[in-house]
């Protein structure tokens, strides 16, 4: 059985940021497109500010749920150092879409470890294609910090093997219960995320 038609997406960040929810919505989108889907995470203590990764694989038939290093098409990073931590999972022609937030854990504040100077810069220096943007500022400008998650989904929308509208429809569905205003706000966040990546690429091709 060939695994060549499998898309591997790695979503990474910190417990509480919404990594698992984002991966879940991506999985639903792949499912509505008729793909076989597997999504897995290691998040035993995820609510406690620890490292969270969600592996999403879809295609004709998915076997192992775990993604191997060096095989990720798209790395969606919710935090700079976390994107760097998992960057060796990228394929040579893969791309990292990274929120350049800097969330510093207590062990760094206590002076026990150093936070990397320029995480996305290090990734670029290692030869990875990286687009970085400030999802939190974008969300705050839209009036609600919690829209950051949808900004991240907008960022990945043009890097999926299906149309951006498929993903947007899944986001609409998720927020439909909360009313038209919330749906509209999320649509704006989605568009802003797409736009941020497109503008970054136009300014400095990754």
């Amino acid at each position, binding site marked *: 059985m060939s695994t060549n038609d499998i898309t591997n997406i790695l979503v990474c960040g910190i417990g509480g940021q919404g990594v698992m929810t984002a991966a879940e919505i991506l999985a639903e989108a792949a499912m509505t497109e008729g793909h076989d889907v597997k999504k897995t995470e290691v998040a035993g203590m995820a*609510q*406690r500010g620890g490292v969270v990764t969600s592996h999403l694989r879809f295609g004709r038939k998915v076997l*192992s749920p775990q993604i191997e290093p060096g095989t990720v098409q798209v790395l969606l990073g919710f935090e700079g150092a*976390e994107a*760097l931590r998992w960057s*060796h999972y990228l394929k040579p022609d893969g791309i990292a879409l990274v929120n350049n937030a800097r969330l510093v*854990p*207590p062990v760094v504040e206590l002076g026990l470890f150093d936070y990397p100077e320029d995480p996305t810069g290090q990734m670029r220096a290692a030869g990875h294609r990286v687009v970085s943007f400030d999802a939190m500022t974008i969300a705050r400008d839209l009036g609600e910090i919690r829209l950051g998650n949808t900004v991240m989904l907008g960022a990945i929308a043009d890097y999926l093997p299906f149309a951006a509208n498929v993903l947007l429809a899944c986001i609409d569905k998720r927020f439909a219960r909360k009313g038209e205003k919330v749906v509209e706000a999320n649509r704006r966040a989605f568009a802003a995320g797409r736009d941020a990546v497109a503008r970054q690429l136009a300014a400095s091709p990754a």
Partner: protein
Amino acid sequence: MAAVMPASAASRLLLSGNEAVARAVWESGVRVAAAYPGTPATEIIESLARYPDLYAEWSVNEKVSMEVALGASMTGARAFCAMKHVGLNVASDCLMTMTITGAYGGLVIAVADDVGMSSSQNEQDSRFWGRFAHIPVLEPADSQEAYEMTKFAFGLSEQYETPVLLRLTTRICHVKGLVVAGEREAHEPAGFVKDPQRWVMVPAHAKARIPALFQRDETLRAVSDASPLNVLEAGSNRSVGFVTSGPAYMHVKEAFPDAPVLKLGLSYPWPPEKVRELAALCDTLVVVEETEKLLETEIRAAGIACHGKDVLPSIGELSPQVLHPAVDRLLGKPVPPPAPAAAPPRVFPRPPTLCASCPHMGMYYTLSQIKNIIVAGDIGCYTLGAGHPWNALDTTICMGATMGVALGIDKGRGSVDKNKRILAVIGDSTFMHMGMQGLLDITYNHGNITVLLLDNNTTGMTGGQATPASGKDIHGKEAPKVDLFKIVEALGVPNERIKVVDPYQLPVLFKTVRDEIKVEGPSVIIARRPCVLIDDFKPFRPYLVEEDKCTGCGNCIEVGCPAIHVTHRDKVVKPSGKEVELAFVNIDSQACTGCGLCVQPCAPDAIRHVPRHDIPIHIVKTTSTS
């Protein structure tokens, strides 16, 4: 949480293994389902509680959950219990005799192994229980199989009157995949039949039934050889063949798509004829199993040559990346060294932390300031107190162990430790799970222990489940609320030695702990504040640091709150000539929920409330304590 209308039959659903098991339990007409929360199995019962026409409960521990399921089975009802791997240790006393009575209504035990240890104190292989208890073991490889095998398990249980072990791992429980759902079957209990020879396990009755256990093993071995759950895939490249079960099957297929594979769904008793058939088919046989050398040992003992843990690891998760080079090396194929790009970048560790405003921080900050103590710890979020910056716990073993361990330290210590004070830390849910007996042992045997009962009104680590002391049931509805103070008193702690304190009030907490550890005999300090992740917690007005007042002393950082961040560091030389490192801080007001723990050790009074008009939107509704 209210029961919701389940998705209709033939729906294609994206379900985790846990959700798939729950769906299948419901469809199987199960009447009673019980569990104590435990990663990675927690969501099975959480999900089941949302289905209609079924009784679900949070039990106080896994042993009780199994006894509840057994009692239901005795009436002819289909029954189910779920637990993590270490939970089955707790329940094993019931299991080892329940296997002799056998099941009447279909009885399935889901046990979830934390392979890779993402959230457990050990890694153990629950398949051993199948051998130990003489019960069949089913091992699904993904969500769809978890669903199908759970449904199959109830029929198997009833046909052979045996409890059935459904063995899951993290990569089943927490992997979402597609499942095609079916309908709920009706199963009206046949009724409890008085049958002392079967249900009253005195020696004479049990002795008469034990031969049937061994007979059941033999019967099920034949069932296993004929079972469609054990599939021999002939493959096209027969240089190497595999016997495998559970999620390891997926890794084998991914790494060696053309090899012959015997996939075991009913993995105990395993099918001897099918294994021989596979062995005859391929040049080399490799057993791929998570985690211990179990099938491999038994297959070799049956006279079939095979490899396994001589080339594969016995701990942690397997993956295609682990299998490929190991098997290639075994076959004498060249194994290329890993590409240099595959080396992971060096990034600081990011261990889980206590949340901003976590009441446990107050207790651990206090303990970190007291010398000459030995602190026994337990299992829960509060185990994080063993980490930085508090380093406040000296032991962690298993659920409820803190009391017994502390008493043993007290009784065993010699002159080296005689001036130390012994403390035992335990959470409210763990206390009710298995801690109460330990406290009774302390009071009965004149232990000189100060117990710190961290009462956050929930089972925090697994996501905030209700407990008998929270006054809520599994559906969030009102339930009798037990009084922990009264329990502690009833267990023999003198009334005047039970103190209830607010862990946000550091001076009171500090004084209470200092006073109680000096007193001879047992005492209990109940530190009471709700977990910040449950509805009972109401955030307070957040704080900020007046940066011109901050002297960089770093006292607040020692509290361990993740909302405090260092803005810059400096060094000064004191008049004594000693060089001191300074860390100037700010507070992330988006994350701060205003517990005030950091305010109390701040020497220059540099921490004050955020002005009302600057309070982040998500805290607008709240009031301030001060």
